[in-house]
């Protein structure tokens, strides 16, 4: 048994003790946390970090009776598993109230009219944003993106008639919208964009500000855990410490919150599957100084790192090199290296060229194996639910090239290098 104490004594702000106690009570009912004993002590200074977050989002880890649930959403996952996000009514309402509060923080009011172009269906994003803007009282158009420009233009016509001035989307979907409609029209109508799913670079924000006069506000969420939002000063993600608890750690101990380290996220509004000390590899620190925007919520400053770097394809879908490595590990001969080139055409569709290098001696084996390319393609397409859907809907296409390991290196730049994880593990 491992004793795990939630450590927050270094957080100078008030801590939502009751929220933590309730969460820990719930966690005892979840299989995932069965091996941990949670104690809460504000005096404790000894940090114990929970091991990995693998497969937390699974039905078997429910902490409540299924009769209490109102939604199952899905996301990502891997080759052989799906991430399932169950919600109780209370949790759904609390979460969307939090999102509405975050939207209000960036000045969204019932005077705004929003086009919510996030994915709907089994994905949480569209449903959640829709409920949040409903709470604020905005007019809104729930219209996810379409994979053809004519349809996008038609949706845009409707958006114009509704005086839409706010787009709630993801970074890649906003780019897709930009390509699908006349940019000039975008500039004359839209003045705000709230982007979730991925982190947005300063360059990206500057581009939309300079070209279209659109203020881009980035939302920070990881694995569907909603964390916070940037204000107009773009100096970190504001988060409500009563709803989200963030600890900064390194491999061995807690760090001072103002120093960069890995994050442990505890969502105090999670219920169906309690999210406790969920480890996130992005490096971050916390800024407790009062922001110029006037909000007294602390800010999370994320350091851009290469750990689990995400790459994106059209359709608002992203993936990491480790996901590809996992997908390729179904191959019998281990590959030496896989280079991925993503080329986007004018319509915003992506061609994904995979250059897979094998040892000379393995080439014959590959030639003899039936349907080898199909097998690789199939495994890559099934990398995650989002990816599978993007390929099916035609946002991206996979092309496989084989190379022997001593072939000349490609001169092309911007290639994503993926190593066989089995070789890496051996090392």
């Amino acid at each position, binding site marked *: 048994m491992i004793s795990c104490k939630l450590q927050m004594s270094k957080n100078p702000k008030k801590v939502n003790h009751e929220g933590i106690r309730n969460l820990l009570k719930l966690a005892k009912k979840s299989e995932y946390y069965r091996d941990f004993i949670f104690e809460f002590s504000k005096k404790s200074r000894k940090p114990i970090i929970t091991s990995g977050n693998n497969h937390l989002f699974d039905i078997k880890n429910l902490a409540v009776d299924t009769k209490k649930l109102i939604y199952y959403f*899905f996301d990502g996952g891997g080759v052989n598993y*799906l991430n399932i996000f169950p919600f109780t009514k209370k949790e759904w309402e609390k979460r969307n109230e939090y999102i509405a509060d975050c939207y209000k923080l960036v000045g969204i009011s019932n005077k705004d009219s929003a086009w919510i172009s996030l994915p709907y269906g*089994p994905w949480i994003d569209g449903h959640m944003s829709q409920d949040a803007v409903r709470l604020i009282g905005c007019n*809104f158009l*729930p219209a996810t993106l379409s994979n053809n420009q004519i349809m996008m233009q038609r949706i845009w016509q409707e958006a114009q008639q509704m005086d839409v001035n706010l787009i709630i989307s993801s970074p890649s979907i906003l780019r897709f919208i930009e390509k699908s409609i006349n940019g000039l029209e975008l500039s004359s109508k839209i003045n705000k964009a709230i982007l979730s799913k991925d982190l947005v670079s300063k360059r990206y924000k500057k581009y939309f500000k300079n070209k279209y006069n659109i203020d881009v506000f980035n939302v920070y969420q990881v694995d569907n855990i909603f964390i916070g939002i940037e204000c107009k000063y773009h100096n970190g993600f504001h988060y409500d410490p009563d709803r989200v608890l963030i600890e900064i750690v390194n491999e061995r101990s807690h760090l001072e919150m103002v120093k960069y380290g890995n994050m442990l996220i505890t969502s105090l509004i999670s219920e169906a599957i309690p999210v406790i000390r969920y480890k996130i590899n992005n490096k971050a620190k916390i800024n407790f100084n009062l922001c110029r925007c006037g909000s007294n919520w602390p800010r999370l400053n994320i350091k851009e790192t290469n750990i689990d770097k995400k790459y994106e394809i059209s359709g608002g879908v992203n993936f990491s090199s480790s996901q590809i490595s996992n997908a390729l590990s179904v191959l019998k001969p281990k590959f030496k290296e896989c280079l991925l080139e993503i080329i986007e055409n004018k319509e915003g569709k992506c061609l994904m060229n995979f250059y897979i290098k094998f040892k000379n001696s393995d080439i014959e084996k590959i030639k003899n194996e039936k349907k080898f390319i199909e097998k690789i393609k199939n495994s890559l397409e099934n990398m995650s639910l989002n990816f599978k859907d993007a390929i099916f809907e035609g946002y991206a296409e996979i092309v496989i090239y084989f190379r022997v390991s001593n072939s000349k290196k490609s001169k092309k730049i911007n290639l994503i290098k993926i190593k066989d994880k089995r070789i890496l593990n051996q090392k």
Partner: protein
Amino acid sequence: MNRDSSRKEIIRKLKSLPFMGEANLSSKINELLFKNEKDLRVYFTSGTTKRPKAIYSSSGDIERTEDYIKWFCEVEGIAGGETVAVMMDHSLWAVGPLTCLAHIKAGNLVIPIDLRNKNAIKEILDSVNPTVISTLPSKLEEFHKIIPKKKLKAIETTGEPMSQKQRERLKKIFNNVNIFDAYGMTEGVIGVECKYHNGYHYDENKAYLEIKSFRSNKILEENIYGEIILTNLLSMAQPIIRYQTGDVGKIKRERCLCGLNTPRIFLKGRMAKTHYILDGVRIKKESVKDILKNVLKTLPKYKIKIQSNKGLMTIEINLSEISETKRRLLIKKISEINFDILNLTKTGQLKVSIMVKA
């Protein structure tokens, strides 16, 4: 004035109002409404033109409609404790989100699914083992092999008419699970079948129906077929008053075997000859005829054939003779006949072909 006479007075006033056609839904008045009101959302409904009709709803409208559909769940006997996979579109069109919200109100757990990839749908369905499937009859046919049947208690269908033959076929596929069909449109939710499948029960205080003569504006008596006229009493943001649905039906008021004494509406197709394609998307024979006349300048003998081949729907129009240019123009015009057809063709779900047969 007592309640009955007050109601009679309201109905008398309602009947003095003019009928509302499809064109009224895309009038400028609605756009002005939208610009001046708050807390509105817009859903779309297929029209006969290239532009979809926009229907505006307030949160109050949505909540009242949720309550009404919750009653449907009660009539179907699936209110509470069910795991419901709602396999419909969840943005743009109202029926998916409304079905989800109503089931949640009825105490069920909901899984919204709008994917088209069979493997992905299978993966989700297998992981949750739904007890209820809510979808369109054409989707049931398309996905029947991947729907887990072990725990299935009921199937809800809507969006497309379901023939008796199709119902029997689906019942057989799904091991005699009860299939409840609901009748409605984006302009208003109307009614639902009970276990006796003898017409759609509806609540007159939520959806007020009248039956209009095909030839005149005369309102017909009970039990006589005519065009169904809908007044949506749940929608306040964008009033739908005496809306000509284009559907043919009759009203019966006698008590049903299930014990409910609400009126029932019996459907008998559409006023205009209509072909249903997929996901409730339809094409009017009259619209195709107009395009043919327009492009070919005369109206030759033709035949429309709708068929499904390995997941791809095709509209095949057989003509005796046509030039290549005109053939291409016809395909283009028919592919763009309305917003939904355009969407299906652009997403590769539908193909329009012109066959020349001597």
